[in-house]
């Protein structure tokens, strides 16, 4: 019982204190929000170690048991160790791991960045396949989705500017028509999030303790 009560009490107290300090600029309260963020990132640092540990163990197990595809676990280890070790060496040697010419910087520029940008760039293909499949005039709602998407897509390229009306229509859709629902959705999410926060502070929502 205590194992649930204590965390609930802690959530309540931290939550209430942080909300109140929002209205009090006087020290030590005014700075508390910033302090909370610093603490947050420190605790995150510890939690990170749990994640790293979990991954290292997962791949270790795969190698130890010769599970299917265990060879790729060596690739994982190689990547991790290379980045971790060069990072620490570069930081100590140059004072900044990202300084020009450090080995860490090479890994970043020629391995991590290309991998990131290529993964990101897969989207060019996926927007195409998703729109081919999803934008069918099955019913009125789907038709609205389809038509606006096509108009805006046309409005963004030079050919669109040659079709009379497309450019102003695109601008109008972006500046007015889509702004209303975008605002409504954001207000809804904010209210829902606030009520979720209240539920958490009051200890009503407690899935996270399950």
């Amino acid at each position: 019982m205590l194992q649930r009560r204590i965390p609930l009490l802690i959530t309540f107290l931290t939550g209430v204190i942080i909300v109140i300090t929002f209205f009090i600029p006087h020290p030590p309260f005014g700075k508390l929000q910033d302090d909370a963020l610093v603490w947050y990132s420190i605790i995150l640092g510890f939690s990170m170690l749990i994640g790293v540990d979990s991954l290292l163990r997962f791949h270790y197990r795969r190698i130890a048991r010769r599970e299917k595809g265990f060879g790729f676990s060596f690739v994982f280890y190689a990547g991790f160790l290379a980045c971790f070790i060069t990072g620490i060496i570069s930081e100590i040697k140059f004072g900044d791991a990202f300084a020009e010419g450090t080995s860490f910087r090479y890994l970043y520029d020629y391995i991590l960045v290309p991998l990131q940008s290529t993964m990101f760039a897969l989207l060019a293909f996926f927007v195409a396949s998703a729109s081919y499949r999803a934008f069918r005039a099955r019913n009125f709602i789907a038709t609205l989705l389809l038509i606006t998407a096509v108009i805006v897509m046309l409005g963004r390229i030079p050919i669109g500017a040659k079709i009379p009306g497309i450019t102003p229509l695109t601008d109008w859709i972006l500046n007015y028509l889509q702004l209303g629902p975008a605002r409504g959705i954001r207000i809804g999410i904010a209210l829902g999030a606030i009520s979720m926060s209240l539920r958490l502070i009051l200890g009503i929502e407690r899935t996270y303790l399950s």
Partner: protein
Amino acid sequence: MIWEKLTKIDRRYIFLFIGIVVLLPIVFNLKVSVKISDEVLSAYKEIDNLPKGSAVMISIDYDAASMPELQPMLKAILRHCFKKELKVILINFWPLGVPIGAQGLEEVAREFNKTYGVDYINLGYRPGDVAVMLRMGIDIKKVFYTDLSGRPLDSLPIMNNIKNYDDIGILVGLEAGAMGDAWIQYVGTRFKQKIILGVTAVMAAEQYPYLQAGQIVGLIGGLKGAAEYETLVNIPGTGLVGMASQTYAHLTIIFFIIIGNISYFVLRRKGKKK
């Protein structure tokens, strides 16, 4: 039968088509003509009207992720500056953007046979964000003692007549993040510096209020903006080529949407008849 196939085209064919239409314009240097928008035109005019020998400061506030959109802008603006015999001062607020900016600057400078230290300079990166911006308002040399390669600024003739923002004709911020807001808020308002922003397409919409309020004198948005600027400078570059790829990619997507819908309707009608 054919219609059924067309409603369920294997997505790998779509990938193939997209890949090809994006690739071909790049390989064969195809271009499309673009319509110039007011905000890009005004950016162009502001730089074009600067007297010969004025200094333009360009801030590289992006890294590799936004390079496809912002690098063509950088090159187009550099070409414009060098063509008009303006001096260029490059600075960086994203440490990871330093090599990217340097690469663009050197490439264009070589095209125009410009001399380092006389016609252009690369100051590199100094940590401190807003503090750096503000201190440059008093004395640039007191923030950047040396250039990127470590030469003292006093030894480079380009910096002889440049002390602070008063000696900078226009500041061009090429932005992939929040640095543009800082330029406007701190340097624009406090030092009355004229600012042009070049931003990624996704960010462009948010910048219009600044344009309307006169806080920036020009706005170049995304690859399309870069292509427009290239058109104005009359030296086609990757922006215009990219715009061709864009156009064909958009049209391909729309083409597939149309095929999907036609086959969908044909099949539905057949289904009804049965």
